[in-house]
């Protein structure tokens, strides 16, 4: 409204100014023209009077005669003076000003024939006609004001036109101001909408969510309420985007937005924070309400999506933060909802409430993420080696290479903690290269000492995306003069199934190279046996979760047996991971398992200790291996925790 008022004022002001200037100029021009016409008329009349006087009167002018002439020719209000020689007769409508004769002589002496002068306190125009000798003459004067009837009409019309134009100008200004301000308002509204909403889904964006959060927080300051903030992302969105294209991903996001919207109340607000991340603000909602809402959203998202004729199943992880329990400002709540979301993801649940007990974890996580990239170049990464034993020969067959991060302040960081971070950050490739490089260098050193073994290196699912990896591995092997058969690459079953075609292609290339291949954590993914048959791998590693309890749980025992049979039928070796006692070892031997690995044998060892271990156990039949007691002591401790040796 301010803008339109300014516009109104400006247009009206300019019009008023223009009107005044033009009106004044017009009036001045018109009156000048009238003046000139009037003066000519006056001169003409004076000439007529002189001619008549000269024609009729030869003697000095007398008053009655002049009065007759004045009546006949003089305009109203005029003054007529006629002279011959020294005699002057003056006639006027009204009193004759004194001393006029003298002024007449002065005027006549100046030789001018028309002009203006003040008579009786008013402006007059005058004209003079005289004989060539100047002996006789006529002076005629009339007041300037009110004698021109056209001027009065002109004034009225100018005034009326001026008023009307001003009036119109105000109207035009009003219309213009209203139109412009409305257009501007619409533009502004569109811009505001654009700034506060997500272009793809049309949902509010992070800024608007934070704003609404701030409003709810303000309201909460006045009266005690509770509300909940839900943060969610889709679990396999990146994969969907990569494989089916961004267009498809966009359509899916839209549909996801619609579904979440459909599963929340009207005064809840849904926002898209970017990527596949959505947030829902639930005002006046406590713990139960938030959990209920999360359940509802989960249920809605679990239904199959149908996008462009393709059926997609996806799953969201939802993190829930409650006000005032988990934080009393927007940033904290968002961050804690984020932490809760990762907790949900890690635990494999659909949703999770923020758990303050695990919060140090998230701070730690952020810190690790920040420092991970530098860690490799700063030499903070190190490799541990966990020996593998061949049950048939009783010899050490090799070792699995495990990466550890010795953080200068946090101590040893488990791979289970930083490998997913590295994968998320895209730092997994340099890390993998470093691991390969270091492991091969170490292997070369051991080989020089006469320790012959196969080193097994884990590849992340992300490494399978790197088409140049086989060539890199080949050149590394070549550089370190290691035969390809001394290197084994382990890929987890879930990584294989993640992108099967690519995995098969990669495995084929590694196989051609002569590198051994193993499927890690077998039994935890959902392998299609049909595909498994077509993959060229040499070794199958049974997940430790089955091995650990196989002596107490008959189901696990059956699974282990089945896997061993399956592997042998497929023509590859079986390694049982997580062997922790001699009973299990004996049972595995019974089941014809090829190799074992686990704490009973040896925990993962630092390079020097591993070297010593290999030298000690190198080519010796290794029945109960542990006489140094390390392994037994380790039993029952958290196997994810790395240990110093």
């Amino acid at each position, binding site marked *: 409204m301010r803008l339109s008022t300014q516009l109104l004022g400006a247009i009206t002001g300019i019009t008023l100014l223009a009107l005044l200037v033009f009106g004044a100029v017009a009036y001045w021009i018109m009156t000048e023209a009238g003046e000139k016409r009037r003066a000519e008329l006056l001169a003409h009349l004076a000439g007529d009077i002189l001619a008549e006087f000269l024609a009729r009167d030869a003697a000095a002018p007398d008053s009655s005669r002049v009065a007759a002439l004045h009546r006949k020719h003089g305009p109203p209000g005029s003054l007529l003076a006629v002279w011959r020689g020294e005699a002057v007769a003056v006639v006027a409508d009204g009193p004759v000003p004194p001393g006029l004769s003298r002024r007449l002589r002065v005027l006549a002496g100046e030789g001018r024939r028309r002009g203006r002068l003040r008579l009786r306190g008013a402006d007059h125009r005058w004209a003079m006609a005289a004989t060539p000798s100047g002996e006789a003459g006529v002076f005629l004067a009339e007041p300037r004001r009110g004698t021109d009837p056209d001027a009065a009409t002109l004034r009225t*019309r100018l005034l*009326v036109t001026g*008023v*009307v134009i001003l009036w119109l100008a105000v109207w035009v200004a009003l219309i213009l101001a209203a*139109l412009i301000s409305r257009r501007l308002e619409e533009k502004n509204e569109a811009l505001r909408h654009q700034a506060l909403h997500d272009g793809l889904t049309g949902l509010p964006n992070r800024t608007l969510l934070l704003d609404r959060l701030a409003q709810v927080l303000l309201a909460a300051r006045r009266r005690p309420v509770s509300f909940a903030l839900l943060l969610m992302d889709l679990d396999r969105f990146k994969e969907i985007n990569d494989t089916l294209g961004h267009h498809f991903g966009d359509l899916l996001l839209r549909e996801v937005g619609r579904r979440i919207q459909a599963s929340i109340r009207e005064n809840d607000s849904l926002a898209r924070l970017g990527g596949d991340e959505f947030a829902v603000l639930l005002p006046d909602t406590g713990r139960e309400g938030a959990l209920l809402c999360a359940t509802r959203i989960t249920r809605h998202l679990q239904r199959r999506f149908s996008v462009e004729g393709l059926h997609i199943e996806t799953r969201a992880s939802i993190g829930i933060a409650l006000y005032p329990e988990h934080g009393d400002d927007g940033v904290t709540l968002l961050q804690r909802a984020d932490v809760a979301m990762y907790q949900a993801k890690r635990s494999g649940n659909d949703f999770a409430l923020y758990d303050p007990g695990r919060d140090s974890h998230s701070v730690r996580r952020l810190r690790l993420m920040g420092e991970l990239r530098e860690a490799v170049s700063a030499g903070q990464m190190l490799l541990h080696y966990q020996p593998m034993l061949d049950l048939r020969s009783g010899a050490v067959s090799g070792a699995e290479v495990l990466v550890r991060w010795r953080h200068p302040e946090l101590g040893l960081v488990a791979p289970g903690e930083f490998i997913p971070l590295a994968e998320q950050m895209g730092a997994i490739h340099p890390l993998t290269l470093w691991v390969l490089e270091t492991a091969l260098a170490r292997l070369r050193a051991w080989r020089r000492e006469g320790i012959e073994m196969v080193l097994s290196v884990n590849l992340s699912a992300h490494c399978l995306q790197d088409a140049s990896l086989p060539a890199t591995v080949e050149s590394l092997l070549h550089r370190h003069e290691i035969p390809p058969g001394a290197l084994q690459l382990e890929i987890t079953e879930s990584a294989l199934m993640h992108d099967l075609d690519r995995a098969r292609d990669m495995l084929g290339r590694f196989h051609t190279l002569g590198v051994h291949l193993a499927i890690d954590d077998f039994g935890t993914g959902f392998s299609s046996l049909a595909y498994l048959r077509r993959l060229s791998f040499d070794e199958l590693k049974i997940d430790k979760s089955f091995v650990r309890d196989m002596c107490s749980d008959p189901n696990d025992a059956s699974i282990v047996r089945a896997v061993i049979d399956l592997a042998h039928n497929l023509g590859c070796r079986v390694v049982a991971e997580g062997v922790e006692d001699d009973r299990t070892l004996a049972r595995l031997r019974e089941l014809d398992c090829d190799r074992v690995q686990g704490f009973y044998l040896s925990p993962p060892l630092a390079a020097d200790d591993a070297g010593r271990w290999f030298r000690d156990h190198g080519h010796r039949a290794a029945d109960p291996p542990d006489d140094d007691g390390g392994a037994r002591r380790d039993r029952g401790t958290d196997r994810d925790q790395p240990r110093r040796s």
Partner: protein
Amino acid sequence: MRKKNIGRLDQFLRMGISAGMIYAGAFLIEDPFSAWFLGALGVGNFIVALVRYCPLYAVTGIDTLQERGG
């Protein structure tokens, strides 16, 4: 009848102005053209004020009735 869009104050202002215009057209101005012109505008404006609906307001979206609360 369409919806009114002229508020009370607006109406009084318009009535005053148009009354002045009509008066000037009828009695003050001798020039017939000016008198008729002013008078006609005054009458038109007066009618608009009387029915409290201004077409130009409708076009521009101005509403003095809503703003001033009638």
